[in-house]
């Protein structure tokens, strides 16, 4: 890999609190984004993801650490002198300018000749599917169209890096899903790096080459969506990315025993005994016929709620020892779900080889 597109070295930022003291938004973050990579920053609100984005675009000044874009140290440059453009959360379209003027703004600033300008504005609008709407005002457009204008405006200056600050959060679900695909396609066409901020884990998994999960101002895990989902580095990542059933306990000879008395079978071995957290995704479960006698890897639950989700059923239950469990059951097991609904209990089966073991207790669940 050549020199990376963005490199953050020990980026630190703390904000003063009104009542005194400070809150750490970025805690010595190291991050590299490759050329042509689609990286997503994922985390709950207040985790530092927007601060990180603003640090790269220059709206937030770092307390410590350096930022390099395309090999150049931009840490001390003001926002308007960084080769980076942003799609803002609320779009931030200039309300007194037409769509064409909005999109062409960066070219005006760069004093691009008029003929080239109109060609590029037209091409950018075509790229986002808004050809012919140059003379509309932003308020005459739908939310989805405004979002596209913001996108066209941000890519027209051919930035080396595009930052997207939860750009899809204001759109309805259907539009959001189609925009996710479009953004991904656009990123491949443009061949520039995207850093995308979201708190929606589904969005992060769908779109990215890599996902960085943030919490408390530091990166908890950075990896491919598949790895983040299947091999979460800690309990926080496991619970934040996707639905999860976490069992904290002692790992001993192929079994995790929780303090409450639940037992999870696993193929993972440990020398002696160790404190671990076992992760079971809801879709790893099936409902056993009858009592599931003979199966070693099973979990008896009392049914609390069964929800039809279209693709299948979401079974919410609780073990004898009071641990809440969520299981996603495929529609093919309709009969088992129906009998569980009547008897108010079920036996869940899982593959011990698929149980993911996270080292350490993990104080979140």
């Amino acid at each position, binding site marked *: 890999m050549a020199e990376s597109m963005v490199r953050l070295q020990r980026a630190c930022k703390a904000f003063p609190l009104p009542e005194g003291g400070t809150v750490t938004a970025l805690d010595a973050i190291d991050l590299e984004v490759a050329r042509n990579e689609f990286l997503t920053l994922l985390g709950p609100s207040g985790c530092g993801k927007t601060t990180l984005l603003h640090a790269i675009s220059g709206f937030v000044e770092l307390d410590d650490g350096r930022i390099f874009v395309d090999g150049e140290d931009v840490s001390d440059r*003001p926002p*308007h002198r960084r080769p980076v453009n*942003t799609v*803002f959360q609320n779009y931030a*379209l200039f309300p*007194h300018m037409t769509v064409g003027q909005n999109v062409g703004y*960066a070219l005006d*600033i760069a004093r691009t000749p008029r003929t080239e300008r109109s060609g590029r504005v037209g091409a950018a609008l075509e790229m986002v599917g808004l050809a012919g709407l140059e003379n509309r005002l932003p308020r005459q457009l739908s939310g989805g169209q405004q979002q596209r204008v913001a996108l066209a405006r941000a890519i027209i200056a051919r930035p080396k890096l595009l930052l997207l600050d939860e750009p899809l959060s204001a759109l309805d679900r259907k539009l959001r899903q189609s925009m996710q695909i479009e953004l991904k396609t656009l990123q491949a066409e443009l061949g520039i790096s995207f850093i995308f901020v979201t708190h929606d884990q589904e969005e992060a998994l769908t779109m990215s080459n890599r996902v960085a999960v943030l919490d408390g101002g530091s990166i908890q895990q950075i990896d491919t969506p598949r790895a983040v989902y299947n091999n979460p580095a800690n309990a926080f990542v496991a619970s934040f990315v996707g639905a999860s059933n976490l069992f904290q306990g002692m790992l001993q000879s192929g079994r995790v025993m929780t303090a409450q008395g639940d037992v999870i079978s696993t193929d993972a071995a440990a020398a002696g005994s160790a404190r671990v957290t076992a992760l079971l995704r809801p879709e790893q479960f099936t409902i056993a016929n009858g009592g599931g006698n003979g199966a070693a890897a099973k979990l008896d639950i009392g049914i609390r709620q069964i929800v039809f989700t279209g693709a299948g059923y979401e079974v919410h239950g609780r073990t004898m020892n009071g641990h809440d469990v969520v299981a996603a059951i495929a529609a093919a097991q309709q009969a088992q779900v129906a009998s569980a609904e009547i008897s108010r209990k079920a036996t869940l089966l899982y593959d011990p080889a698929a149980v993911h073991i996270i080292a350490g207790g993990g104080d979140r669940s």
Partner: protein
Amino acid sequence: MRFARRIGTTGLIVYTLLFFAFIYLPIALIVVYSFNADPVNMMRWSGFTIDWYRQIFGFRNAASEAALYIESTDQLIAAVRTSLIVAASTTVIATVLGTATALAVYRFNFFGKRFYRVLLFVPMLMPDIVLGIALLIFFVGVGISLGIGTIIIGQCTFLISYVFIVVSARLAGMDRSLENASADLGANEWTTFRRIILPQVMPGVVGGALLAFIISMDDLVITYFISGTSTQTLPIFIFGMLRRGIKPEVNAIATVMLLFSFTIAAAGLYLRRRNR
């Protein structure tokens, strides 16, 4: 039940009509009487005439010669001219200073900002007569001779507040992320101000300017104290006329002023619409 509702509806309509009559009847009467031919008692309708308009615009004729209350049309024209000069000057000064102040308060955080904001509200709340006397004492004490200059300075002291408040209200509704977006797209602060902030506050600036202009044209109390003996604005001139009895020309002057105010207000509303 239905009957009661009908009574209620009728009552509401009557109330509404009375309400508007209460506000607009006196003004309507002035306009009507400005066309009344009776030169002595204007409450008695004795025929349609435009003589009073001819008179205030300086065209005399035999009929109006008998009832000549304005000694000289030149005096009226001079008063109008003084008012226009004062209003134009104060509008320019108050708009520039008021807008600059509003932008500074919006843009920067500085020590005592809240107190400063309150200080800017106070001149609007101060009783006119107090402000007038205070200004008179100040000008005389400092030794500035009263005249058009003191009127302009005096009116600016409170007109700046009006412009400040109108422009501040506009700025308060502005989206700060637009400035970030502009910077993000490569614009420096000056360009951002010129191309993003200024066009958006413009309706507020124009509104503040029109307000300042109308208030300046209209002000009697404060101006009365600080105008001196040789300078007359239009309101002072009219006030002087009234002291010698209500004459028919006053109706005509009032009607023309009314038309003038409506024109300015209409222009303001039009600009606002176009800018939105």
